[in-house]
């Protein structure tokens, strides 16, 4: 009896060993680790048995190991990740072509041979993206695939219903009309403000108004080919004075410096402020929030980009240069695997890949309704009743656990293809946003130094930038006057600004001589 038992046990063991060996013999998936900023830190992302990741593996043979890092501290984590090159993820999403990126290009593969190879990588080397690829280059080499963004995207949006209450029904077209609108909104009531400003992100607000006044975008080039900083243009001071005037008449929260951007949306939602200079896609987001939460049915927001100056010309500040951030392939990928990785990135840019990364899978995370539009829940739970809204929330909550922040891997080199087949439900504001971005792209003022390097700027730039932006905020909030503002600009020159100007001028002239 004992012998029989032993035999059976031995047989089971042998079988299990064999089956294990069998699994090993099957083709190993090609694993790529990828680091992305996480915008849903409070949601547990499904890693095992996630149909979206399974689909990617099925289509491309790549098994993604997604490493999510909180967006709020992504920059710090990136710097520490790069400090240990041997354990870097294979793919990293970079927030921008910044100092950190330029400093570390040695750690990434040079992708130049791939991103211009239209025959092998039709999506990655798509014609629509060739110029932007060139613009992201460091010393003439492309080290990452850019992540495209709507351009120019930034502008002005405001509560048109409140504007009507204070007597302004026409959308401003000139700076004068904008001033009239801001002043009228400032006078709406004692405890509300015209312009929504926050202390930890003032760059957008200041850039929108100063560039509209005619100042360059961060850096300008004069007729002799010399580079100068925006604050040396008189229009920049005009822009700051515009904001200071609004502050003085009670159009900006006197306490805005201590308010952070996490409250930015709430200030508008609670009706504390009515206008914002920022990315204009917030206009339709806010409108939709009001529709959903406040039962608003009318259009209560209006958005605009270009404003005519006194001489009739238009200039506007683009929030980006047509891209925001890059996806890099680090040298933890073996050189012989590089074509395979590029093929994967190529797929991510195709219609199929873009749909998967942005919307997920049909009947899993999105549904096509009878009218051919795409939605994040099926048509049979549509409706405004409490029961339906609860069901819709169930769907959207579950979608987030499956999608997480994988849309951060979207590059969109050939442009956004996701709405080509099944558009998402649109609205007048969404349409206006898209139309404005096309119409005003030609007026966008680009930063001529965005791709140039200055050694002094790399070393001191962030400190000097802070010096300037702090002084601007102090001037706006009437803590310092014009003379003191100018003395800070003087200080900027002495603490390295002059050197940066000289270095950028040399780099600019060298680049343009070629």
């Amino acid at each position, binding site marked *: 009896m004992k012998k029989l038992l032993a035999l059976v046990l031995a047989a089971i063991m042998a079988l299990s060993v064999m089956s294990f060996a069998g699994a090993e013999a099957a083709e190993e998936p090609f694993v790529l680790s990828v680091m992305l900023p996480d915008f849903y830190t409070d949601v547990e992302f499904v890693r095992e048995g996630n149909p979206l990741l399974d689909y990617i593996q099925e289509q491309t043979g790549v098994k993604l190991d997604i490493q999510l890092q909180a967006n709020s501290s992504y920059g710090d984590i990136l*710097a520490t990740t790069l*400090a240990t*090159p041997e354990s870097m993820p294979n793919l990293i999403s970079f927030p921008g072509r910044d*100092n950190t990126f330029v400093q570390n290009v040695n750690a990434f593969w040079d992708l130049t041979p791939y991103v211009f190879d239209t025959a092998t990588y039709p999506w990655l080397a798509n014609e629509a993206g060739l110029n932007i690829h060139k613009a992201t280059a460091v010393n003439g080499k492309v080290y990452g695939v850019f992540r495209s963004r709507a351009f120019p995207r930034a502008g002005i949006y405001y509560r048109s219903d409140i504007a009507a209450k204070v007597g302004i029904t026409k959308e401003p077209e000139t700076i004068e009309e904008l001033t009239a609108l801001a002043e009228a909104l400032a006078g709406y009531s004692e405890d509300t403000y015209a312009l929504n400003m926050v202390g*930890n992100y003032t760059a957008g607000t200041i850039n929108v108004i100063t560039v509209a006044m005619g100042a360059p975008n961060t850096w300008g080039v004069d007729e002799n080919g010399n580079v100068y900083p925006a604050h040396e243009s008189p229009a920049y001071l005009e822009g700051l004075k515009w904001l200071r005037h609004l502050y003085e008449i009670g159009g900006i929260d006197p306490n805005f410096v*201590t308010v952070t951007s996490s409250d930015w949306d709430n200030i508008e939602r609670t009706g504390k402020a009515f206008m914002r200079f920022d990315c204009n896609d917030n206009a339709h987001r806010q409108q939709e929030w009001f529709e959903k939460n406040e039962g608003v049915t009318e259009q209560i927001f209006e958005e605009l980009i270009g404003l005519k100056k006194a001489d009739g010309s238009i200039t506007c500040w683009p929030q980006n240069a047509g891209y925001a951030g890059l996806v890099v392939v680090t040298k933890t990928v073996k050189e012989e695997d590089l074509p395979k990785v590029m093929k994967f990135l190529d797929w991510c840019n195709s219609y199929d890949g873009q749909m998967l990364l942005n919307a997920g899978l049909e009947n899993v995370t999105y549904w096509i309704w009878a009218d051919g539009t795409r939605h994040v829940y099926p048509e049979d739970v549509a409706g405004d009743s409490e029961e339906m809204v609860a069901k819709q929330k169930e769907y959207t909550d579950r979608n987030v656990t499956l999608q997480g922040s994988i849309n951060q891997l979207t590059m969109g080199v050939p442009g956004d293809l996701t709405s080509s087949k099944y558009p998402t439900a649109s609205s007048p504001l969404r349409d206006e946003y898209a139309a404005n971005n096309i119409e005003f792209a030609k007026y966008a003022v680009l930063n001529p130094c965005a791709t140039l390097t200055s050694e002094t700027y790399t070393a001191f730039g*962030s400190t000097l930038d802070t010096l300037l932006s702090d002084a601007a*905020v102090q001037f706006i909030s009437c*803590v310092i006057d014009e003379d003191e503002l100018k003395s800070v600009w003087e*200080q900027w020159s002495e603490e390295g600004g002059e050197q940066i100007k000289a270095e950028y001028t040399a780099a600019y002239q060298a680049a343009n001589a070629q």
Partner: protein
Amino acid sequence: MKRAERIALYGQGKEYRRRLLADVVRDRWLFLLLLPGFVYFILFKYVPMWGVVISFENYVPYDGVFGSQWVGLKWFRYFFSNKAWTRYLSNTLILSLLNIVFYFPAPIILALLLNEVRSVKYKKLVQTFLYVPHFISIVIVVSITLVMFSSGGIVYRLTEQLLGHPIKYMTDPNLFRGMIIGQTIWKETGWGTIIFLAALTNVDTQLYEAAMVDGAGRLRRLWHITLPAIRSTIVLMLILRMGSVLDTGYDHLILMANSLNRKASQTLDVFVYQQGLQQAQYSYASAVGLMKSVVSIILVVSSNKIAHLMGEEGLY
């Protein structure tokens, strides 16, 4: 110890080695106890120290410590060639000085006060409550401060009503250091009393009784018995403190800083954080960090010397 004395005591050559071995074998358990601490210091304190070589390189992580370009004193020159460095250094020194003057005595005073509490139960209760703030994250402390001191907050409104004009606690650069020290005192004073309370338990109670017989009041006893008894602890703590006096921390300052008060918040630690972590300028940041450490060593050595001159035992 002179060489001759040493030879007389431990022998020479073979004899010396034999005795040494015998000692080691005899005290093997003590040596074993020493081992983990020894390994810890070698591994985590001495080995990483070689990393400072990156202050003299243009360090790129991928190229490694040995592959990066050697630039000598470039980063030091960079720092000192820029006018801004005096602002960073003076901000650091002013904050450190305020820390020593206002924060350092706070736990001593509190410990002395606690020592005078008669009811043991009450004393224990008070102690427990005093330790709580230490365990509250600085992020929370700053948030509470923001709620209480920014416009609309209770303290802000109270001062506005009392004085007739508001005090801009959160945005006035002149008040920035006061707020920082105030938060530190609130958060750490209770925790800091522990070591002084321990020192106080060593005071011989007979001395108090004798002093009472001689008619010494409470203040006299405090001045002539308690304080001299814990003086060496105070000096020791002060010297230890000198080593970290330039560590202003960056998290606390960054959380409290905004566009209006930033010029008071820019210390060397903040600079190292901004350059090293936010801008990935590892070499530049380590150069500034290294310089800070050199100043710290000078402070420790010189304060220890002063302690010796004052007749105290000091740190070593």
